[in-house]
């Protein structure tokens, strides 16, 4: 699989629908402090099934929905959609184009979709685990993780190795 396109709507600072088309090689994201770069990484982590708000730099899941600003009212829903190229059939689905979509509402409810068909979190997680897509700790390296890696205890360092086995 490779990532084709990510769309964020109401996710963190991306109040307006915003698309990123990724290159098969290296896509670089630049910008000033606080502009939303790490929020893109959080969006990817979230659409791939992350359930722990702390891994999204939030205290609770509701914090990921656009909280408003002096010029805009808060939104009621956050959505992320990720288009994957499955032409090598790593994901055990009969589609070559797969779109994962995730939504969260202020009410606390969540919705998951595979190619617009409603599904459960468990199905998405199982699907991605089978294909070794995005479920291990070293797939998304957050800000500050590399600087602190050497301080981890030996059992923690082993985790990355185990996920690669």
């Amino acid at each position: 699989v490779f990532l084709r396109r990510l769309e964020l709507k109401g996710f963190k600072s991306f109040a307006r629908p915003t698309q990123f088309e990724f290159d098969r090689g290296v896509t670089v994201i630049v910008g000033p402090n606080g502009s939303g770069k790490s929020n893109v990484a959080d969006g990817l982590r979230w659409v791939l099934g992350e359930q722990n708000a702390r891994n999204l730099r939030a205290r609770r899941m509701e914090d990921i929905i656009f909280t408003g600003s002096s010029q805009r009212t808060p939104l009621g829903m956050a959505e992320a959609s990720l288009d994957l190229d499955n032409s090598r059939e790593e994901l055990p689905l009969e589609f070559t184009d797969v779109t994962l979509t995730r939504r969260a509402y202020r009410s606390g409810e969540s919705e998951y979709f595979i190619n617009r068909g409603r599904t459960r979190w468990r199905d998405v997680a199982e699907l991605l685990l089978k294909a070794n897509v995005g479920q291990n700790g070293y797939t998304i390296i957050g800000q500050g993780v590399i600087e602190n890696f050497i301080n981890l205890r030996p059992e923690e360092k082993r985790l990355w190795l185990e996920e690669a086995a």
Partner: protein
Amino acid sequence: IHHNFQTTFETVSHQFKSYFTHFFGGGTAKLVRIPPSNGNEMGVELVAQPPGKRLQNLSLLSGGERALTAVAFLFAILEANPSPFCVLDEVDASLDETNSIRFSQALAKLCQRTQFIVITHNRNTMQVANTIYGVSMGEDNVSRVLSLRLEGDSPSLLGNEVPPY
């Protein structure tokens, strides 16, 4: 193609040495197993010796050297078990000019097998991108994507909105 832990351990240890010696221009490095003790599970420790130095504890390395060592370990894992994609959020923040060039060269090689999405402030890393997105925060505190550089254009086409790195 899931190997057992032992095969992965040996492959990653070998690759870790090769990335480490490439990054530091010599020296040696390997992984060692830490047997379980005091209730802790088995662990893995990185052992590294920069060129010309005595074998030392990683805590004596400098900030940039520790980051470079952690990146060598990460890249070794990606060699041993290529993940379809990998997101790196400012992993090059503490690297100096020489090391950031070595880092970006290694990235340019690895991206043949793994797709990378890289958040950075570093000019050398931008050079290896095929696609660059500039993100900025609007007056209304909403993130927006400013521009897209396709392969071959120089960063100057991005206009004023992207910081003059």
